[in-house]
């Protein structure tokens, strides 16, 4: 059995998860990463995606996050999400609205840099939607 460590998922509104877990899969900005106990200290931004955590009891929980940060230390991992929902509670309409907004942002972008950023965000959202629909 793998060593356990403390994982916390916080959104501005509240603390969603605070428990001992064996591993967490984080959608990092530069690729997915699995965090286990004794991980080297890393700080990374996260993109919209699914966080999967495996609790000590062997249970798997999945949360959808929309951007944020992960602060990883050997002793624990803190995920600051801009907004986070359990996969079971995800609101399809809300997701569709976010995609719509991102699409408008991309269309409204004035210079190339903001446009490429907005388009990147949009593609991340659509990938996420596809992943959720297939799940």
């Amino acid at each position: 059995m793998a060593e356990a460590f403390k994982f916390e998922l916080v959104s501005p509104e509240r603390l969603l998860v605070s428990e001992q877990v064996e591993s967490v899969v984080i959608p990092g900005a530069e690729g997915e990463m699995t965090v286990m106990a004794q991980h080297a200290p890393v700080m990374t931004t996260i993109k919209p995606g699914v966080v999967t955590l495996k609790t000590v009891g062997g249970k798997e929980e999945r949360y959808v996050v929309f951007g944020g940060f992960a602060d990883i230390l050997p002793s624990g991992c803190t995920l600051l999400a801009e907004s986070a929902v359990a996969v079971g509670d995800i609101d399809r309409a809300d997701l569709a609205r976010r995609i719509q907004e991102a699409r408008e942002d991309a269309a409204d972008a004035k210079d190339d840099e903001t446009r490429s950023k907005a388009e990147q965000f949009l593609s991340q959202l659509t990938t996420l939607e596809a992943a959720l629909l297939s799940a």
Partner: protein
Amino acid sequence: MASLKDLRNRIASVKATQKITKAMQMVAAAKLRRAQEAAEAARPYSERMGAVLANITQAIGGGGDAPALMTGTGRDDVHLLVVCTAERGLCGGFNSQIARLARDHIRKLLADGKKVKIICVGKKGFDILRRDYGSLILERVDLREVKTLGFANADAIARKVIHLFNEGGFDICTLFYSQFKSVISQVPTAQQIIPAGVASAAAEATAGGNAVYEYEPEPGEILSDLIPRNISVQLFRALLENAAGEMGAKMSAMDNATRNAGDMINKLSITYNRQRQAQITKELIEIISGAEAL
């Protein structure tokens, strides 16, 4: 001297007012609890955000690649004040205290020859500041329709502020809100959010853990993503504290009003009883003297 009927009407109306203020007090108490819970639930996020920010600031060491939102424009000619107040009145001196602090600040800045721009969050602050500084108000954010304050509300305001900053609309941004100390004490506070206080953050970092982080992507890039978010978080916290403070102030204001109404009813009842007694005595005298005359 008011007649008996007038007094009776008066007592009835004060009683009705007392019922209303009592109900408002109870509503405020319930809302206060919810607002306090929301403020407490939001605390972990802003605390951790502060810790992360401190860590990164330390990693960069205040170097040249820190984003402008953090270091400022290097000038302090144009000030933007974000004044957060409540949407509704009937909460004692709550709104006017915040507005007074903002007004003093504005007066000082104007006397120093700076330019001032104002964004009002909440109707009451807007109403107060409009009288003296109407021409300086850029915008008024209306949150009256918002039932439960979400991060999205704060984020929208923060985005406007950052957009304005990027356009070179101002150099320094200060946030005015009321800090929630307890139900009976709310402290109006001015907090500078742009440029963010780098010095204090760095000092905290040395006190905290000195872990050597790997950054993914580069610290500068994370920071440029983190700082705008931090501004949203600060705003969100201010709005939550304000919401709790407003309810606290409203609760004690309504408690006072209920008590005042009670006192008033007592006084009016005494006058009413005296007058009634006087009238009875007068009638008796009339009857007796009428009987004696026969």
